[in-house]
């Protein structure tokens, strides 16, 4: 199941010209507001007809400008989860949920009502009407409704953007479960790097209507050349971590390919594999393994690249086992330590600088 998009469309001051593939898992379309993310997802959904190009899903043509093919919205079988939910106000949750079921072809595999209610924790809401639901509940129902139409793919356009951070935290685990427990491919539009870092398996970065980088999430997020697009404060690598055990003092011990991480207590069982986001601004670099330091995480690394910009800062990309880390330090420090590619250093990370939201749930 692979979505292949190659479209051109006039868009504001510039021309949207986007080509990428979404291989499966969660593919995040990331970019600032006004870079054309929603236009792309609308073109895939069939809400918008691009001026030129071609869109295929597992080889089936959804749109082909040259051949004059544009499959109508209701025949594409793509579950679209909108930013504003768009639940039907005159139907209760149950009728909203089952609305698309009758249109799914008989051979379409997919979860049943009970499975979806379990997955999203909305079984108790079935008799209620959308107007009485909280923002987070609405969005979960909207996701369930899309899933129950047994789509070939889910399209999500900033599904969490209208929610406050507590509600976001409420939904993110469900999206992680969706990613890890179903094999439903998802195209996920977002301008929030923390969401992308939590969820995405692949990332496509858009800027002014063009794809500037696409690839597996770990690679794209640890690419020092993408720091400008991602934002200095938001830039950071993601590493895969296995929970070893919980310590009595409230810390959890994870093992990663390059060593171990002690992080604030995670809501996971020992043995669970998750991903941890380590922001570049939270990583210090030491030449020798520091002693008598309060930071608990000290990882041996090898410097891969250094990137300077116009300002006083630099981005250092390091290899730590099989993972990549990014560190943001000053040019002055880099000079003082004589950092260079190939150099052996230690990355120093305070446990408390890693927020709970930076650790996946499952």
């Amino acid at each position, binding site marked *: 199941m692979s979505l292949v998009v190659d479209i051109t469309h006039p868009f504001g001051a510039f021309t949207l010209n986007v080509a990428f593939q979404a291989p499966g898992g969660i593919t995040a379309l990331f970019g600032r507001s006004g870079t054309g993310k929603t236009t792309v997802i609308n073109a895939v959904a069939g809400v918008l007809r691009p001026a030129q190009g071609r869109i295929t899903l597992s080889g089936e043509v959804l749109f082909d400008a040259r051949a004059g093919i544009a499959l109508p919205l209701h025949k*594409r079988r793509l579950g679209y989860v909108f930013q504003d939910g768009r639940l039907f106000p005159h139907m209760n949750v149950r009728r909203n949920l089952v609305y698309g079921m009758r249109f799914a072809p008989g051979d379409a595999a997919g979860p049943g009502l009970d499975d979806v209610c379990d997955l999203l924790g909305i079984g108790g809401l079935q008799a209620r009407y*959308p107007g*009485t639901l909280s923002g987070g509940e609405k969005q979960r129902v909207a996701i369930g409704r899309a899933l129950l139409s047994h789509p070939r793919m889910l399209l999500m356009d900033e599904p969490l953007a209208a929610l406050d951070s507590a509600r976001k935290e409420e939904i993110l685990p469900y999206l992680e479960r969706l990613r890890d427990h179903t094999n439903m491919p998802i195209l996920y539009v977002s301008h929030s790097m923390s969401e992308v870092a939590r969820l995405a398996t692949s990332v496509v970065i858009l800027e002014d209507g063009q794809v500037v980088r696409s690839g597996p999430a770990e690679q794209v997020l640890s690419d020092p050349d993408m720091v400008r697009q991602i934002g200095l404060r938001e830039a950071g690598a993601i590493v895969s971590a296995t929970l070893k055990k919980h310590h009595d003092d409230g810390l959890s011990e994870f093992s990663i390919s390059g060593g171990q991480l002690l992080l604030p207590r995670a809501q996971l069982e020992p043995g669970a594999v998750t991903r941890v986001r380590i922001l570049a601004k939270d990583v210090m670099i030491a030449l020798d393994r520091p002693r008598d330091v309060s930071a608990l995480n000290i990882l041996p690394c090898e410097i891969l690249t250094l990137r300077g910009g116009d300002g006083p800062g630099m981005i250092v990309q390091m290899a730590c086992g099989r993972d990549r880390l990014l560190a943001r330090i000053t040019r002055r420090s880099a000079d003082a330590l004589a950092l260079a590619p190939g150099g052996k250093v230690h990355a120093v990370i305070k446990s408390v600088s890693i927020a709970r939201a930076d650790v996946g749930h499952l």
Partner: protein
Amino acid sequence: MSDWLGPQEWQAVALSIKVSLWATILSLPFGVLVAYALARGQFRGKQLLNGLVHLPLILPPVVTGYLLLLTFGRRGAIGGWLEETFGLVLAFRWTGAVLAAAIMAFPLMVRAIRLAIEAVDPKLEQAAATLGAPRIWVFATITLPLILPGLITGAVLAFAKAMGEFGATITFVSNIPGQTQTLPSAIYTFLQVPGGEASALRLVAVSVAIAMVALLASELLARRAARRGQERGRVE
């Protein structure tokens, strides 16, 4: 009531109600269709359709009646065909009164329904389509339930207008007691004969009563339909 009203008066009241009900019921599907096309459609001639629908509102009713006579009369283009094909005669029959009333009430009905359709968020219809629903299903399950209050208002407005229709009706189907003499025609007739004021006044009272009942009923229905949506919005 039949004691209080004379047979001719009673006939006029009954005929008017019959004509207005049929006019409302028969024009409702067309009203919804046209309102939907005007609210959501993008096609050439949209303004022409809009103008045509509103024409009876602006034209002198006598002109509309005469145009109906020309097209739907027994020698008219459509009237002749209807009689040949279906044996349906409209001119000088109560069926013609239904047509005249429906045409005259159509602009009001379309306007009310169109406003209701325009108030429905097209994003909801779009969402339904992404779930696999074909357009007609979207209309039946999303649009129609959401415009119900507007639909009721439109129907009641049309009914009230049909009850009061005079000019086009009398021109197209004349004023034959028991056949085409509707309530307004009867009032007009009674006012023309000496000593008819008492009958006319009784019919006036009946008109006022029917109008009030219709208005109240529509208010009640529309409010109930709207409340059903809102209640779901507020209370658990």
